[in-house]
């Protein structure tokens, strides 16, 4: 290697070339506005230790992948997020998806369930079954999973405030199938910190929410060993407008807050940490995303070992699900969204995701049609079977650019992590409005870049082509709300209301004390207490969170 080789090339070769033909832009940056150099060489990486920075797949710090064989052993799970209308509608779509090759289920609940309310609540008007499946009681969950063997299929549930309730319902459905809770596998999102920061589907204030979350850590580590009781998420933070670095930093810092909460409860870190899982976005900038995933694994491994004293390598291993970026899709020229999703999905795979959801082309208009959902799934299958990228592990490892970018994202993320440490932790930072403001600023900055055409969205501020073709859309039957409410009222008449009242009363007492609440919730769901009734019981004890509105 020649001394100062790159500088020589820049002076003697690049500069004269640019004098004749200028570069396309003055500055090249990622979608997160991180400046990118023209060329990265070995010399730019500085002193580099393979063992310390990368090591081997399945070995600390897991930069190259969490498992020794990665996709050669087992492909990522193709886990398509889905749910709409009634439980029956959703059950039908799940059977279809499984027949088409999805290898795991993922439940999208409607907004009332997400907020811990029943379909007949005044605030549920117009919202029943419209952006997810309506679940009021265990009966709905039984219908959703009818004919689906829960000892063979794993399920992720996107639910936060009422996560413990839906977990309990899933356990109850499995038991009715003769499948014990020791056998079932899946995930509940259950990440309240990112709700306050970005997704905004909270119920209770931070302290009781964290109590409930740690209850699920404890319960699952003892009773449901194959379950991931949390999916610490960056997806929503990114969708709200953050940069890749903010997504990385805020997600991991949230994770650290949860580990701290578990330890403070008295749980042994190596007992619950192996089942903490993560969830990231796969946005447009191909290499930034890949570097982000690799940096995430490296940072988490270090944090678990050095900050939390974990001894079990499984506690240091960051496993994650990815979803392609919803916010990158366009209403204009919707068919081109397929190309976007393909690039994003490829980044997730080359970054070593354990599980992947690919968005459908029509999601800027409505929930996916069957055809659009199939194309999204086929996109993953083409990557898996035709592209060849799953034939080897961490194929971009050793790329000068990718290693430089991985290091860069790690260093920048640490700055945010340390800032939040200095604020007293993530809960304090949220109270102060810090992550929320960072995200709103980043979102505004990006919009202004789009307005000025410094950043391009094809079909929107460049290559605009007039009125887009009409595409078929999924319509939710307006009778869904009426039927769901009728069905709920009928169930309320048929169940043993004395027993329901007793269970809710026991739950209320337990909530005021220090018991693990999951068994009480499980008891209540089994007698067909509703999501709303259980959450109202907890609301009475915990109160409700209120956000201070700002922009």
């Amino acid at each position, binding site marked *: 290697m020649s001394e100062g080789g790159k500088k020589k090339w820049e002076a003697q070769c690049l500069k004269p070339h640019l004098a004749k033909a200028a570069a396309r832009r003055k500055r090249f940056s990622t979608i997160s506005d991180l400046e990118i150099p023209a060329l990265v060489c070995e010399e730019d990486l500085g002193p580099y230790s393979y063992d310390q920075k990368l090591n081997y797949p399945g070995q600390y710090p897991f930069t190259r992948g969490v498992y020794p064989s990665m996709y050669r052993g087992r492909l990522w799970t193709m886990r398509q997020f889905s749910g709409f209308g009634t439980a029956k509608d959703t059950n039908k779509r799940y059977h279809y998806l499984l027949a088409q090759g999805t290898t795991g289920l993922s439940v999208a609940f409607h907004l*009332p369930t997400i907020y811990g309310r029943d379909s007949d609540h005044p605030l549920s008007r117009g919202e029943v079954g*419209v952006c997810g499946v309506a679940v009021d009681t265990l009966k709905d969950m039984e219908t959703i999973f009818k004919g689906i063997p829960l000892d063979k299929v794993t399920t992720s549930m996107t639910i936060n405030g009422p996560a413990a309730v839906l977990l309990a319902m899933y356990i109850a459905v499995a038991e009715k199938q003769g499948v014990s809770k020791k056998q079932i596998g899946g995930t509940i999102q259950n990440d309240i910190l990112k709700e306050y920061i970005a997704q905004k589907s909270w119920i209770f204030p931070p302290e009781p929410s964290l109590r409930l979350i740690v209850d699920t850590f404890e319960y699952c580590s003892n009773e449901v060993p194959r379950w991931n009781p949390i999916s610490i998420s960056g997806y929503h933070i990114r969708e709200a407008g953050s940069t890749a670095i903010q997504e990385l930093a805020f997600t991991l810092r949230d994770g650290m807050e949860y580990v701290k909460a578990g330890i403070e409860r008295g749980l042994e870190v190596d007992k619950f940490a192996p089942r903490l899982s993560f969830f990231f976005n796969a946005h447009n900038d191909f290499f930034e995303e890949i570097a982000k995933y690799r940096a995430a694994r490296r940072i988490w491994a270090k944090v678990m070992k050095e900050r939390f004293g974990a001894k079990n390598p499984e506690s240091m291993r960051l496993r994650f699900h990815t979803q392609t970026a919803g916010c990158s899709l366009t209403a204009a020229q919707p068919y081109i969204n397929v190309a976007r999703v393909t690039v994003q999905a490829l980044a997730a795979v080359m970054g070593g995701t354990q599980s992947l959801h690919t968005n459908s082309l029509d999601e800027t208009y409505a929930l996916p049609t069957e055809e659009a959902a199939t194309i999204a799934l086929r996109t993953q299958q083409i990557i898996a079977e035709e592209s060849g990228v799953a034939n080897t592990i961490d194929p971009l490892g050793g790329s000068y650019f990718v290693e430089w970018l991985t290091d860069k994202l790690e260093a920048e993320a640490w700055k945010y992590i340390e800032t939040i440490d200095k604020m007293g932790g993530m809960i304090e930072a949220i109270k102060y409005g810090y992550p929320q403001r960072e995200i709103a600023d980043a*979102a505004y900055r990006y919009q202004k870049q789009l307005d000025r055409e410094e950043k391009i969205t094809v079909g929107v501020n460049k290559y605009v082509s007039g009125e887009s073709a009409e595409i078929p859309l999924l319509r939710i039957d307006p009778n869904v709300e009426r039927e769901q409410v009728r069905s709920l009222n009928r169930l309320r008449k048929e169940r043993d209301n004395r027993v329901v009242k007793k269970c809710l009363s026991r739950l209320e007492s337990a909530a005021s004390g220090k018991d693990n609440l999951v068994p009480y919730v499980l008891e209540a769901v089994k007698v067909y207490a509703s999501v709303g009734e259980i959450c109202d019981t907890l609301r009475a004890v915990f109160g409700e969170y209120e956000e201070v509105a700002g922009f």
Partner: protein
Amino acid sequence: MGSEKIRILVAKPGLDGHDRGAKVVARALRDAGFEVIYTGLHQTPEMIVESAVQEDVDIIGISILSGAHMTVFPEVLKLLKKKKAGHIKVFGGGIIPRDDVKKLKAMGVLEIFLSGTNTDSIVEFGKKKIAGK
């Protein structure tokens, strides 16, 4: 535009918690010189109309991504009429199929801005549509 600043209420109805668009639009309008009040999340149509009347706004901007738009917009328009506040105009944005955009405009919603809209055009709309006040 006269010395009186145009007042805009940006509202997030129902259970939908996606506020990125609403906040970006609110900020763009404020930066362009409008007086902007943001309701925050989880507003009912009644709360929105109440705020609009109390704050004496010229126009309400409703952001909705949950699919409940065909319930919310008509309700707000109905309540504005009921409260004799029909002079307050309504526009909006979010995840709304084109067929519904047509229906909403036929009901009296001035404009719907879907994802990808340049904020300059929203500012232009604000200036043009209220100038005729």
